[in-house]
């Protein structure tokens, strides 16, 4: 069997999962990331794990470089070329503000106004040319820009999704003028209407492409130096993989690849354990990311806001984030209400108990004060041997005094409030789509997730929680278990009555062909190829379409029937004779890899759960609580809360009254009764 590694390069840590046989996990590891040159951290991780890189069969990889470059505005100097009269579409957006209340704050467009240019030429919404493209001007512009510090040219014309001819001609002109430029045409990136969202997506692509290309080249070189010449696949934000070599053309697709990988891994692990309705909860230092998996498929968002007025209209796993993490700060507001987050103590100074000068009590401090985390074995901290619990207690006392709460009550209150916030976000995700959270299993991960999962589960009314074997490195594992994936999409926006079956069938066939070509071009060995089709449909006049899964031979009649079913399911009724509109057709092509098992592996210890120690932990009162080591818990082991489970990458709290059982894959399944 083949040996593989999954590596997730995060902002703070680079996580690695290694499998010697491509099936079972051989080892996991966390090393600090190297933001100056992220490929270095990746190489370091391989070194620290003692892996013979040359003998590896495959490297699978997730990274935050793209996300960070957008947020910190460290991307390429781009020029934007637009239809005459629409230079400012990228900056104007569609009329909004930072938040509902508060009118201050401004914005930084990815491409500033002095590098945005207009050219005559116009298509209408049917793709008919109204004004021909002023190619002579584009030649002059290209010549002028050739002398400037511009790395990428982004071309975004009105209605290019309907007819990309002008964009393609402009692209050719710029490519000829300077072969060094990355030239991005908006219709190549997203073949859909909504000019701002499409322009922004193309701008993100252009902004990231040079950076990501350099990264790909540098990583390939470093790996080659170590004797590795086989495949490297990179995680995309849609949950599918893409070959490293093709990364430069898909830079915008790897934004948020880490969170996507985590969701993929959680979905896969839960699936192997027999659960196909999953809520994933990833809690780290500053945020809680939650996503929903229905019938084994993570829910996809069509548009994601990367930053204020930076939408990305590409299919991404729909991950919702709130500012609730270990570092979230607790305070009493002006009305005398206790609040937790979203302000975070961050990595520096961090929680009070980290002893680096933090003075405001955080969620982690509450966990420390209540004995939930082991003060004598801090995870991920090299500068101290023991958490500063006394300082944390003092901070709790100061916070609780005006509320009439003692130290433990204050800490408990912080946990209750932050858990309720996470539970509410979790619930909102399901109920807003008409799903019942009780039908879902909760998979928690991230450094802080397993500390809070028990409470979130109870609060939301979820019956079962699954704790994977390595919750702290789940995103790296996610890279290891994913498939290749490409998404195709095309705006139609016409009533069903104006379409015919043959034309729709042909569009779907073209999308399948396109997907197959891209998968073939990836050069990756695939077990099988599969396609899924979606029709986005609405009643005439509605803005929010519904996604309806169709098969490749679906007729318009089928679509109409499926849409009515979906609408009734979503809203409880249909709207009778109002015309139905086919908004777009979408195809997802998966290239299925032979892959590693997600959760299995390691030696199999005895089924008997035996605590390694006991300590006082506060659960509405101090309780002598058994402490288990995760690696000693084998399949079949059972125990009940209160209990604490410790392992290298995280700590798990089992609240009183909950039952835990280790399944055959090494997951801990927690149930309310």
């Amino acid at each position: 069997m083949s040996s593989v590694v999954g590596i997730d390069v995060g902002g703070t840590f680079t996580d690695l999962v290694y499998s010697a046989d491509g099936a079972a996990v051989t080892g996991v590891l966390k090393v600090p990331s190297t933001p100056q040159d992220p490929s270095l951290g990746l190489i370091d991780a391989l070194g620290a794990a003692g892996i013979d890189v040359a003998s590896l069969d495959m490297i699978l990889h997730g990274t935050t470089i793209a996300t960070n470059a957008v947020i910190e505005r460290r991307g390429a100097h781009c020029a934007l070329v637009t239809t005459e009269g629409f230079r400012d579409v990228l900056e104007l957006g569609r009329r909004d503000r930072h938040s509902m209340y508060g009118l201050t704050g401004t914005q930084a467009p990815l491409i500033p106004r002095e590098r945005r240019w207009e050219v005559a030429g116009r298509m209408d919404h049917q793709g008919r040319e109204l004004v021909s493209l002023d190619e002579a001007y584009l030649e002059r512009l290209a010549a002028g820009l050739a002398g400037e510090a511009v790395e990428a040219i982004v071309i975004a014309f009105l209605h290019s999704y309907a007819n990309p001819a002008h964009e393609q001609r402009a692209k050719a002109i710029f490519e000829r003028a300077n072969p060094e430029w990355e030239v991005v045409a908006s219709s190549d990136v997203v073949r859909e209407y909504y000019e701002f969202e499409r322009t922004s997506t193309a701008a993100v692509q252009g902004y990231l492409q040079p950076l990501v290309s350099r990264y790909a080249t540098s990583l390939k070189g470093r790996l080659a130096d170590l004797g590795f010449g086989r495949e490297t696949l990179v995680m995309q934000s849609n949950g599918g993989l893409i070959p490293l070599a093709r990364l430069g053309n898909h830079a915008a697709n790897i934004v948020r690849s880490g969170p996507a990988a985590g969701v993929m891994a959680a979905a896969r692990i839960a699936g192997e354990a027999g659960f196909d309705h999953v809520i994933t909860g990833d809690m780290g230092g500053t945020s809680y990311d939650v996503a929903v998996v229905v019938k084994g498929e993570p829910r996809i968002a069509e548009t994601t806001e990367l930053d204020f007025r930076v939408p990305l209209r590409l299919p991404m796993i729909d991950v919702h984030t709130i500012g609730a993490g270990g570092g979230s700060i607790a305070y009493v507001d002006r009305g005398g209400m206790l609040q937790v987050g979203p302000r975070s103590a961050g990595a520096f100074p961090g929680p009070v108990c980290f002893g680096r000068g933090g003075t405001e009590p955080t969620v982690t401090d509450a966990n420390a004060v209540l004995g939930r985390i082991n003060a004598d074995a801090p995870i991920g901290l090299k500068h101290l041997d023991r958490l500063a619990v006394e300082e944390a207690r003092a901070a709790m006392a100061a916070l609780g005094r005006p509320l009439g709460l003692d130290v433990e009550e204050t800490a408990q209150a912080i946990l209750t409030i932050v858990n309720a916030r996470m539970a509410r976000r979790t619930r909102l995700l399901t109920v807003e789509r008409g799903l019942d959270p009780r039908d879902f299993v909760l998979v928690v991960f991230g450094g802080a997730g397993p500390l809070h999962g028990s409470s979130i589960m109870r609060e939301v009314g979820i019956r079962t929680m699954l704790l994977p074997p390595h919750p702290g490195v789940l995103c790296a594992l996610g890279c290891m278990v994913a498939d290749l994936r490409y998404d195709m999409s095309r705006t139609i926006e016409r009533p069903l009555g104006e379409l015919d079956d043959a034309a729709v069938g042909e569009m779907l066939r073209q999308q399948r062909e396109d997907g197959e070509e891209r998968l073939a071009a990836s050069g990756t060995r695939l077990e099988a190829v599969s396609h899924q089709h979606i029709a986005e449909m609405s009643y005439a006049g509605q803005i929010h379409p519904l996604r309806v899964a169709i098969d490749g031979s679906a007729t318009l009649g089928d679509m109409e029937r499926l849409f009515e079913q979906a609408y009734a399911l979503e809203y409880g009724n249909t709207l009778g004779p109002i015309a139905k509109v086919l908004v777009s057709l979408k195809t997802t092509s998966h290239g299925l890899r032979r892959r590693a098992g997600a959760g299995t592996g390691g030696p199999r210890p005895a089924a008997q759960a035996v605590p390694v120690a006991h300590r006082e932990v506060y659960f509405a009162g101090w309780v002598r609580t058994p402490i288990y080591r995760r690696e000693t818990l084998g399949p079949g082991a059972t125990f009940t809360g209160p209990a604490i489970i410790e392992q290298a990458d995280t700590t798990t709290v089992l609240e009183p009254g909950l039952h835990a059982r280790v399944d055959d894959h090494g997951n801990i399944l927690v149930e309310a009764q």
Partner: protein
Amino acid sequence: MDPVTLAVVRGGIEQIADEMDLHLIHAALSPIISETNDCANGFFHPDTGETIAQGGYGLPQFLANMQFTVQRLIAIAAGQGGFRPGDIWIVNDPYISGTHLNDIVMVSPYFVDGKLFALFANTGHWMDLGGSAPGGWVPRATEIYHEGITIPPLRLYAEGVRNDAVVAMLTANSRMPDQLLGDMAAMTNVFAVGRRGFDMLVERYGVTVLSDCVAEMLVRSEAEMRSYIADIPDGRYVFDDFFDNDGVSDVRLPIRLAVTVTGDSLEFDFTGTAPAARGPMNIADCTTRSMCFVALKHLFPDVPVNGGVFRPVRFVIPEGSILAAQRPRPVGGTTDVTQRVVAMVFGALGHAIPEIAPAAAFGTTGVVTVSGSRPDNGNYYVAVYPYPGGYGASRQSDGLVNGTPPGSMAKFMSIEMSEHRYPVRFGYYRIREGSGGAGARRGGCGTEYGIEMLADTLVSVLGDQVDSPPFGAMGGGAAAGNAIRFTLRGQDWVPPMRSKAEKVACQAGDMVHLASPGGGGFGLPAEREPGAVIADLNAGIIDAATARDTYGVKGEVDRLVLDRPVYKRPRQELV
């Protein structure tokens, strides 16, 4: 009160309101609800009508409006046998329920064990309720009857049974009956979402704890609001402004606000404001009050949304003035008048708390409607394009471009989608150069756009602020005012009321050109960082003369040329 239970219950109640918002936004047919969130959901105290909580996705302008509506409805319902399970009341009478006829308010009682526990209410914008112009924006209306039909408070559902006669009356009076039915269903259905949520809370905490929490939430919010007010220096702060005209006669309409801060209480006194206008530049008193709270919430965003927040504030709004209009005064200009109330509060409180209050944002929603029948299928349509505009600068930052009006969160329709749906073509959509107020912090620029008609259409515009542009603060300059121009059969034409025009008959090839105001500047222009002035110059946001004359940049000033056909290099340095 156990602080943890209180916090968790408050979060739980707010969550239910959020869920109702999302449900309504997704289910509504009206693009104004589904695309621009022109709706709201909330829960209200069964006796006092005070807001318990309101959803976080609906529009700010409904912030306090629903409370005042519910308070009036409680009295009306009491006179008609009270609330019964399964009732849903409906009202759009602006003098009772605020804003304008298109905003429908529904109220439904929620009972626990046969006892009234709370009133649920929602608001949604319906596209058309008759009147002399499509969509209800009638710039030349002189009576509310021109703006559409009034629905007095009545039971749309009585004990679970829909009053089909009322429904038939409504659909018969709308240009868009199908949409109306879809939106009605969306609004009535959403109450079930609220009931489900409350049933779960009642099951978990019991009625007593829940009632105690609700009472305590109001007390805490009141304390929080009072603490912010106490931080404002005591005093009386006055601000004056005016509207261009009422759309009927070209006479200015003065508006005056005196804010008095006394300890932890506030008074908003609009004495000195013009009597109600003949044209539609009027709003009802509850809308005025609501917008004052919107302004406070913009200044103090952390204040929660419930009735406790409204307790420390008193109002003096002269009856029969443009801010407390009475039947039959038209109120279609609510979209504009409301935004200016926010600016008035900023202007007055700017004297007291300049660190917090920004300069004026563009204060005109400038609703443009294009209506007609599609040439291809004959279907009737109304396209609505409300102004984006610039925000005022503040101590913290320059002003934003292309903001949504302070009382709204509504987005601008995608140009490409617009061209699919309506026989129009956009000629341009761009930053209005030079329109932000000058200052150490510069106001955001307005937006300009031109819409070409591809068929016979009727175009109406209802805006303001041509003559009284958004003001600057602390020495900052005013922004550029509103500017509207038509090109009809090749001839330029500015409507006589400048910011208002009703049913201008356009043909294919005619165009309407709209230029929204920017936001005011903050602080003296001479104190603006030179690098920021040069950056504005390079971006074309200001011109060379402004850099020299207003900002005092010395030496040769060369403006970057972005225009065709010449490519010219940005000027990187100056002086």
